[in-house]
């Protein structure tokens, strides 16, 4: 399997006024295509920061990051946006759905930026919603859906542009264990279909799903990265 993600010596420093916060202190990560990875660690360990950098939402302060052999540090803002649009699908703890538009429109959002024609967008959004078991919730607004359903809409949205990598940040954090289990099941299925899955969590049972775990502590990888 080819190397999808290759990070070496990645650091991230935030300056909060006078003090500097070292969120990452030299992280090496290699992820192959089709892997199912859990990034685990206590809060403050830098796992969210790492996730943001992997997901091209943020830049490393130093260190190298190659995504599919391309140097991410060399890319400008627009190129990073293109990477997020085409390669990466995000799932967030708080779902982050737009509240005023129906489920299908939320799912179709990434396709807008990919310039897919409106009719095609809706058709595709509906079919993805079907695949996550929400075929009968297409026209519901987010506040008419349960937490589990909202997270499934968010998963559907992350799949809209058929990304290579799906990054889930505490995807079950706001759900009870039954709903959480459903979400994890969907992610496992996506892994079976060949997607690269990266779950960030501090919960053991969630992290156990990963075929390989990256333990973070104090901004460094514990053991083998």
């Amino acid at each position, binding site marked *: 399997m080819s190397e999808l993600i290759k990070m070496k010596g990645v650091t991230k420093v935030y300056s909060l006024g006078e003090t500097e916060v070292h969120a990452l202190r030299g992280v090496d990560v290699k992820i192959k295509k089709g892997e199912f990875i859990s990034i685990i660690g206590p809060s403050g360990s830098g796992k969210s920061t790492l996730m943001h950098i992997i997901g091209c939402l943020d830049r490393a302060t130093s260190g190298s990051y190659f995504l599919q052999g391309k140097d991410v540090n060399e890319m400008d803002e627009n190129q990073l*946006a293109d990477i997020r649009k085409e390669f990466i699908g995000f799932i967030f703890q708080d779902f982050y759905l737009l509240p005023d538009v129906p489920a299908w429109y939320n799912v179709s959002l990434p396709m807008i930026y990919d310039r897919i024609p409106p009719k095609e967008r809706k058709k595709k959004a509906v079919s993805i919603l079907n695949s996550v078991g929400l075929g009968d919730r297409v026209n519901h607004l987010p506040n008419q859906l349960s937490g589990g359903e909202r997270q499934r809409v968010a998963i559907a949205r992350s799949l809209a542009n058929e990304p290579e990598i799906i990054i889930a940040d505490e995807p079950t954090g706001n759900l009870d264990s039954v709903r959480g289990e459903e979400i994890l099941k969907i992610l496992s299925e996506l892994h079976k279909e060949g997607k690269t899955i990266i779950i960030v969590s501090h919960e053991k049972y969630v992290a156990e799903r990963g075929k390989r775990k990256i333990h973070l502590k104090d901004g460094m990888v514990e053991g083998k990265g």
Partner: protein
Amino acid sequence: MFRGFLIEILRSAVESIKANKLRSLLTTLGIVIGVMTVIGVMSVISGYKQYIANSFSQLGANVLYVSKYPWGFGMSREEFKKIQKRENIGLREAEALKEYGTSFKYVSPSILRNMKMERGDKEAEEVQIEGASEDFSRITNRNVSLGRFLSKDDIVYNRYVCVLGQDVVNTLFTEENPIGKKVKIQGRQFNVIGIMAEKGKMMGQSMDNTAFIPYTTMTTFTGKRSTINIAVYAEEGEETREEIRWILRGVRDLKPDEEDDFSINSSEALISQFNQLTSTFIIISIAIAAISLVVGGIGIMNIMLVSVSERTREIGVRKAIGAKSGEILGQFLMESVVICLVGGIIGIFLGASITKLISIVSSGILFHIPIWSIFLGFGFCFSIGVFFGYYPARKASKLSPVEALRYE
């Protein structure tokens, strides 16, 4: 493809405005007032302009009117009092002009009175009767449709003859040919010698409720001392005006250091005076509009800043799923432009309604909205939307995705 994106951000702009109806409406108020002012004032002024132009074109182009009073606006009390003291213009002046004029041929006194005309038991009220000379039809370019106009002999011999306007004919005669029949003015019998060609209505008022009689005959009603107007057909423009001036100064015995004690009026001069006056109004209204548009624009900027900060999370999500900075910028810019254009549409609508209302109240004057003022209004709204929306939109587009997502 790009068009699809435009439609999408338009749609999202409309959604977001709909989600905050009251707020958006209040925001547009400045824009609404600005556009309303422009449209309203422009319509009323252009309506009046046309009205004035039409009214005075009745008097004929190239016609100079010699009168005691100047035509126009904005005379002070002192000026008016001074002018009141001028010696009346009389037939003496008209006759002098006729006799000595070289750059012009046609001269006619114009003595107007509204009087009743009768025939048997039929009456025509408030007929505008004009004492004129045989030149009058040439000066004003009005012709008879039947019979003849006044002749020199009619004038010289004070004949009791009249030429009727079509309305008077319709009121006093039924089927028969009026030529040669008799009508009564102020108890005097007049022979009908001709009928004027119909002129129709102008601004709701009939131009055919008239009759012409020899000015010499007219003076038996009005006396010889009241002031009259003298119409001159000015073939040579300024040269004619100067010549009239010198003849009148001679007739009225003015010394070289004395001012003219008469006025030479023309419809062109009056129209241009009116235009000058209205251009002041236009400038004032544009200033009012500009102020309210700028205030409105600042309101738009304010509300867009609020909107950006309220939707920081949304901006983060959009960026996370692949929106470029330019696309976020476009989305918020579109929103402020749409708000401004909605304000513009409301403003145009209100301006048009006010115009319509004034039209109804002022019965007769037709106000229309000049097309260019609509384009001007829209253009302004668009520019304000872009200008005042740019800063908030740029702020939105520059947000870092991570910080935007973390925003509580």
